[in-house]
């Protein structure tokens, strides 16, 4: 069975500080991977997706970047956080049949 892990579980960061969020999936080779952002009380907004190592496509950037350094790893980062970056960050993976399965998420608070 596939398992998806995100780290950290929660972060409190200062405006202007850097950020790195991680996602790892086990039990599935060459998955499609996705990053989503959800503002408090808001809907899900897809940020990036990747279908293979080293390739990342941007959907909505929000002054964030993403990388896929390994087949099972997806990283979301920024060098300078904004207040508007606060929210719930979700990593998801997809098999071939289009549905997506979400990780447990990282809750980010920017002060």
């Amino acid at each position, binding site marked *: 069975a596939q398992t998806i892990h995100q780290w950290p579980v929660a972060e409190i960061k200062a405006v202007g500080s850097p950020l790195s969020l991680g996602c790892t999936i086990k039990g599935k080779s060459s998955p*499609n991977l*996705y990053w989503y952002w959800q503002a408090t009380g808001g*809907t*899900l*907004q*897809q940020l990036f*997706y*990747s*279908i293979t190592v080293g390739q990342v*496509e941007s*959907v909505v950037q929000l002054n964030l970047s993403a990388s896929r350094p390994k087949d099972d790893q997806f990283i979301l980062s920024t060098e300078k956080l904004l207040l508007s970056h606060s929210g719930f960050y*979700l990593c998801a993976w*997809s098999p*071939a*049949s*289009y*549905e*997506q*399965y*979400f*990780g*447990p*998420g990282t809750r980010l608070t920017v002060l």
Partner: protein
Amino acid sequence: GDSVTQTEGLVTLTEGLPVMLNCTYQSTYSPFLFWYVQHLNEAPKLLLKSFTDNKRPEHQGFHATLHKSSSSFHLQKSSAQLSDSALYYCALSGQGTGSKLSFGKGAKLTVSP
């Protein structure tokens, strides 16, 4: 482009009454449709997925039927339970590998005794 319009905002029901959350979509092809459920402080979970062969998917008492003629995928349950209280999102999958899931704005279902 692809878009999803669903029941939005707060939906309040009494336990035992039927649940109906609407979802309609616009797409230039035949997409897959999904319902996701998100409980408080948790990640969304896939609840239902449309089939291509007119089967009606069911899970945890919920069901939905894809009607291509009306571009709809409404979520239904015959009898609401307290544990059904959650956020519900309808989503549409774009074409091709790695394509985008377009989510509706979500409906917050609250079931009271």
